[in-house]
């Protein structure tokens, strides 16, 4: 368990999340920490609350042509296209390493059809090393599946129910897209389908144009915007969802978190856990500084248990 010790007082940083006792509320976001294997040169994965793997699909995916990313002011666009090793390779090559970790590991699952999602989750539901699943119905960069599920409340409920039935006793977190008129409706649909938690947000669809070529920079033309540029929008959406369904399921908040105060904002807005995405690219051990900084915030505010600040927005 992670305690922050300051001025002889001990602050409890641990959180309960979907039935798991986590050392602290800080996760790394899907698609920004691989399968947990690449980052160990830069930080101790076990010091995290947990991490979410890159999306796994039934079959390996090559992803989109390059350029797949472009930087923009205070953010970046990506159109990776869910490039991943596929279920079989994940089980063979990545899972053994994951089993050796003590931190919580959520496997992010994506697909083109409901059957795809169910097949991946069924195969992994019995694996000891996996703490739970994150359902990616919010990827803006693929032609089929992804965000098309995530923008229709009826489909959100249907896919959540089907995947929940396949996930055995493992918790299911549903990752919401901000590309809807009212995210509270999506949130309620996922809860109705049986979601144990919600994570938000995924990226915002965006475009960067090369003004010399007069063409989009990304080969996919559009991409998902992430990084500090989206943070205030994400904080608002987390609070919106917290007000709507916060009494029913916990929330993992993410979108542009780069500092401890960013993380604390999300928690005040209603997130029980938070995830660091794009910021890890700039500073691979950024999550460590965030954990430390949250502890310092608690000390300053006289908070003895981190849970006290979740959803405390006045």
């Amino acid at each position, binding site marked *: 368990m992670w305690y922050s010790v300051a001025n002889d007082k001990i602050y409890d940083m641990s959180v309960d999340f979907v039935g798991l006792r986590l050392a602290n509320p800080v996760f790394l976001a899907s698609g920004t920490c691989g399968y947990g294997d690449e*980052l160990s040169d830069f930080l101790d994965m076990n010091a995290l609350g947990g991490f979410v793997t890159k999306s796994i699909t039934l079959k390996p995916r*090559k992803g989109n042509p390059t350029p*797949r*990313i472009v*930087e923009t002011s205070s*953010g970046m666009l990506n159109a990776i296209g869910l490039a991943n090793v596929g279920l079989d390779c994940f089980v063979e090559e990545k899972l053994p390493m994951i089993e*050796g970790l003590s931190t919580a590991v959520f496997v992010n699952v994506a697909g083109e059809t409901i059957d795809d999602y169910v097949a991946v989750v069924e195969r992994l539901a019995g694996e000891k090393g996996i703490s739970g699943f994150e359902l990616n119905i919010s990827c803006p960069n693929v032609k089929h599946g992804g965000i098309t599920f995530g923008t229709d409340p009826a489909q959100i409920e249907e896919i959540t129910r089907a995947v929940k039935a396949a996930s055995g006793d493992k918790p299911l977190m549903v990752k919401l897209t901000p590309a809807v008129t009212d995210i509270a409706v999506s949130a309620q649909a996922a809860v109705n389908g049986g979601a144990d938690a919600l994570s938000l947000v995924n990226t915002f669809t965006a475009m960067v144009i090369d003004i010399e070529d007069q063409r989009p920079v990304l080969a996919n033309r559009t991409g998902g915007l992430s990084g500090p540029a989206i943070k205030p929008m994400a904080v608002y959406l987390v609070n919106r969802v917290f007000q709507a369904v916060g009494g029913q399921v916990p929330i993992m908040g993410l979108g542009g978190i780069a500092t401890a105060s960013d993380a604390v904002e999300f928690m005040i807005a209603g997130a029980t856990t938070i995830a660091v995405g794009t910021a890890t690219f*700039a*500073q691979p051990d950024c999550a460590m500084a965030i954990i430390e900084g949250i502890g310092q915030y608690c000390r300053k505010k006289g908070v003895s248990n981190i849970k006290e600040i979740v959803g405390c927005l006045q």
Partner: protein
Amino acid sequence: MAKSCTRRRRGSATGLVVSNAAIRPRFYRLQLRIQGSGSALFAQTQPGQFAELQVSSLSVPPADQIPDGLADVAQRQIILRRPFSYCDIEVENADSVRLDFLYCVLGAGTVRMTTLKEGDPVSILGPLGNGFSVPEGKKAAVLVAGGMGAPPMQHLARSLSENHGDIALTVIAGARDAESIPFATEPDGKDDAIIEEFAPFAGEQIVTTDDGSFGRKGFVTVHLENWLTGAKYRPSEIVIFSCGPEAMLAEVAKVAEKHNVDCQVSMERMMACGIGLCQSCAVDVKQAGSKGAVYKLCCKDGPVFDSKDVVFGGKRQNI
């Protein structure tokens, strides 16, 4: 705890600027020194590997010091690191290593880098990726550098001369024009023009510019073809190492294949992380035993690839 007890291959460290000098209006040579425990990791750097430098917190220089045409992009609030090849490395002692980079001022990040002064700290990730390797049985190496592809070639030339003294070294370096050669050469337009940085290592140098404003006129690939045709070595005894724009690498690969000579190319891609997390830096690579191709990561599997494996860029540039 993880059961990992393998030695770290890479890591992060803080380098202190030794110098950051303009060698030409748009080209700078940056020297960083890493001291203490982090230095051992960087001392192992192989030619062709690269580093990710954190430059987002540096200030934008005053307007009159921003090169023409970049005033606009210089203002962009950047967050990502920038990848650079090492152009030289000196292990000063067990506790200190000096890393040299050559950079071209192109945009928001590199404009900020021009403000670095002696003693400034720079956060660096490295050594990253896989560098060049010398296959068995080679007697001659041809280093083909195009434009800003030259920096890693300097490191490679030194390393080859120190560790493979029996291999004859030829450098074929080219650029669009005299101004675009990333070294402090005096334009003289002669056929026997050389680049000082390669002189201690290379037995032979062929320096070219597309417009003939320095060295010989013409593309490096034409000179490579001529060199191979007249070479006194068997094809199996030669290896080509190349770095430069992708279109040039594609031509070098063709020439190498035609002459049945081994060839390694250093590729570039837009990189968000440089350490295998984001999947942004895909390079199309042929799959053994099948017609299809797979994407490999430039930052992790590369940046150096066997030229026979790479499916070079299609209609548009990848970066």
